[in-house]
């Protein structure tokens, strides 16, 4: 139905037509007409954040935990520039976001007006696409196109920059029926000949491995279900990137744990020694590959990705398949079922024996303590006490993030929200606000570090305002732990600026925000404290004081290959494990 309305009203109408229930934002001069339109309706609820970066991260958490598009509304100039970190984060991790920015009136654009910035210029490299709407007639189409582009193909952030005079202007609104762009048609179905070739390679594999990523999660529940089916059918081992955790259940015995720089020994060794690698929805990122010229030297590589530019970017692959993970997995499962293909049982048995030898090294082992809380122990206890609940985990960036990935077992997709590609410290708290907004009854925990969480601490105020009982579980080691670890290992122990000399009292800080504060310093008190945290029906800042000297292992050091991992001193020594000729562990 076509109706006349203002540009600002069109924004709300389009959001409602797209099924948007929540939008995260912060008002300002150049978006006031849109805020006026928000004020006049009840379809879309606005969530007032404390900083625009927080708005985008909250929308990311909302999007990643629901599969819907996350929405953001900010003003021109500083509103837009503050959103840039979040937009870049969403681009790197392929999160669907529509960010509406206010802009100075069209006649002032280019005039250095108050709170003017070149928003489309600034956000061009950090969005999937962006628009500056200069005619009211274009606004309905652009708004709906933005949702289509953000959510289809490889998802990503889209910015719609709307000058204030366009928000006031009247025009005709109707929901467009289809999408006119002829240049943008993401390919969903994979090439059948290539899929057959891939399945044939898999059937003849002696040392196969699935290597999966965030693409499985983005593709939807079906992709995750089909992946589980294919892994069971084939009997192959499976590992995943940081972004892909939960797509395959961590409790299953075919699961090798995360791979990459801080992945498990068995996952990385299997990557190095496999003869057929089935990469689905992952992108051979440098945290995964390590040294490129020594990356899985003997394997045939199959790569399924919806984004053609991910293929052959870092690593040359033998069978590239462009398509959506769920579509391709469905074809693979059907081929495997119907053409009486079987895995090579004998070879697979030997391969699993080898993998079990690597597993026996217990690469995640750490030295327990009765005196001081080990950060790994904290995550283990947190997992044990929350795994039977309806739990969502977000993280900040650093050691705590890697320990969370290693020690928290994710059994389902969309339960794990973390900043992978950009590595944005400060992601976790605002992200947890978005997750809790989407899942008001669930337990939402931000596994944080004390340095990261201080970057966006103000969003605890948002959580309090909207009665969002997020739990901020801070592994407080007083250092930027990952920076400290690199300085210890690579810069001669010169800890330049990685120690925070003046940390706040997090319990008092929580009280100042009208949240609940808990401090825990002894391993013996930890379970009780975690239970208290879970039981409190408001936001909690949990200051978990941990061993400041603990390092995150295992680790692929710089410039090394997957089979040159560095293990912690608690891992089983090579000479004590069953050894294999020619494998020298550093």
């Amino acid at each position, binding site marked *: 139905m076509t109706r006349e309305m203002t540009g600002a009203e069109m924004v709300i109408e389009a959001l409602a037509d797209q099924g948007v229930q929540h939008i995260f934002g912060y008002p300002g001069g150049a978006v006031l007409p849109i805020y006026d339109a928000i004020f006049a309706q009840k379809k879309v609820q606005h969530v007032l954040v404390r900083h625009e970066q927080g708005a985008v991260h909250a929308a990311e958490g909302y999007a990643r935990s629901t599969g819907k598009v996350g929405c953001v509304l900010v003003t021109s100039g500083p509103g837009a520039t503050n959103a840039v970190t979040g937009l870049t984060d969403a681009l790197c991790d392929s999160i669907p976001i529509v960010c509406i920015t206010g802009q100075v009136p069209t006649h002032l654009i280019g005039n250095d007006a108050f709170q003017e910035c070149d928003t*489309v*210029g600034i956000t*061009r*490299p950090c969005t*999937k*696409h962006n628009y*500056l709407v200069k005619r009211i007639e274009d606004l309905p189409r652009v708004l709906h196109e933005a949702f289509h*582009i953000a959510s289809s193909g490889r998802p990503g952030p889209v910015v719609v920059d709307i000058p204030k005079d366009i928000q006031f202007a009247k025009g005709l609104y109707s929901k467009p029926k289809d999408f006119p*762009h*002829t*240049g*943008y048609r993401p390919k969903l179905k994979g090439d059948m000949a290539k899929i057959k070739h891939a399945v044939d390679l898999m059937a003849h594999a002696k040392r196969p491995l699935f290597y999966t990523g965030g693409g499985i999660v983005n593709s939807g529940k079906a992709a995750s279900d089909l992946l589980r089916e294919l892994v069971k059918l084939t009997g192959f081992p499976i590992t995943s990137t940081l972004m892909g955790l939960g797509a395959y259940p961590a409790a299953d015995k075919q699961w090798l744990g995360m791979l990459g*720089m801080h992945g498990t020994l068995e996952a990385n060794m299997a990557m190095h020694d496999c003869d057929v690698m089935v990469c689905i929805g992952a992108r051979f990122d*440098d945290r995964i*590959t*390590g*040294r*490129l*010229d020594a990356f899985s030297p003997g394997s045939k590589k199959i790569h399924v990705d919806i*984004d*053609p*530019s991910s*293929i*052959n*970017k870092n690593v*040359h692959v033998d069978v590239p398949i462009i398509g959506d993970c769920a579509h391709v997995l469905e074809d693979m499962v059907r081929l495997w079922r119907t053409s009486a293909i079987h895995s090579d049982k004998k070879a697979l048995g030997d391969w699993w024996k080898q993998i079990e030898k690597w597993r026996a090294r217990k690469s995640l082992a750490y030295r327990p303590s009765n005196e001081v809380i080990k950060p790994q122990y904290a995550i283990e206890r947190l997992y044990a006490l929350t795994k039977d609940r309806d739990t969502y985990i977000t993280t900040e960036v650093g050691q705590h993030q890697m320990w969370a990935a290693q020690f928290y077992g994710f059994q389902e997709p969309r339960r794990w929200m973390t900043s992978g590609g950009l590595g944005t410290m400060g992601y976790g708290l605002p992200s947890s606000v978005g997750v809790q907004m989407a899942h008001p009854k669930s337990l939402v925990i931000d596994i944080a570090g004390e340095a990261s969480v201080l970057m966006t601490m103000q969003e605890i105020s948002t959580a309090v305002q909207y009665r969002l009982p997020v739990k901020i579980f801070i592994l407080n080691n007083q250092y930027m732990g990952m920076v400290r670890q*690199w300085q*210890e*290992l*690579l*810069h001669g122990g010169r800890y330049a600026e990685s120690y925070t000399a003046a940390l706040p009292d997090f319990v008092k800080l929580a009280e100042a925000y009208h949240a609940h504060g808990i401090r825990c310093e002894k391993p013996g008190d930890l379970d009780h404290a975690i239970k208290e945290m879970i039981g409190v029906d408001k936001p909690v800042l949990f200051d978990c004081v941990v061993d400041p000297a603990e*390092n995150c*292992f295992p680790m692929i*050091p*710089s*410039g*090394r290959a997957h089979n040159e991992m*560095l*293990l*912690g*001193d608690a891992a089983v020594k090579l000479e004590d494990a069953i050894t294999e000729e020619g494998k020298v*562990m*550093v």
Partner: protein
Amino acid sequence: MNANANVSSSTSHYPAAPTAQRAETHTLSVLVDNEPGVLARVIGLFSGRGYNIESLTVSETEHQKHLSLITIVTTGTPMVLEQIKNQLERLVPIHRVVDMTLNGNSIERELAMVKVRGKGEHRVEALRLADAFRARVIDATTESFVFEITGKSDKIDQFVELMLPLGLVEVSRTGIAAIARGPEGM
């Protein structure tokens, strides 16, 4: 080896730069929606990802359909060239990207205007050479010529080089335009 011992002489946590493959020069034809900012998207992609632009021409080619054709000459290893093509195709207003060099059967032309100043024998020689290169005189004074020359880039390079000792003042070049041979369109 103890975990906390010195692990590596390298202090970067990024993999080393790959050993160089041979760079090739390719011409890409990029069909785009003629909308504001589309050229900025293309150029931003090249500068942001560290690709080279040797030559770039852009003009609207189909007014009714709001389509423009961008012709880019770029250099890179085969892997980089494939990335450039894929990254360009990812941009929403881009319809098609065709690697004219890879297709092998295309014509490339460039137009240049060349200003030469001189008297006497130099002037006569410049005019004689222009005739040999089929360059046209499009402006003349008693002490100068402007020549218009069309052809492959190396032909223009050669002409410009010959004009240098004869009083070359300046050159304006369009960059390369390319089209495939045969009856088929892009």
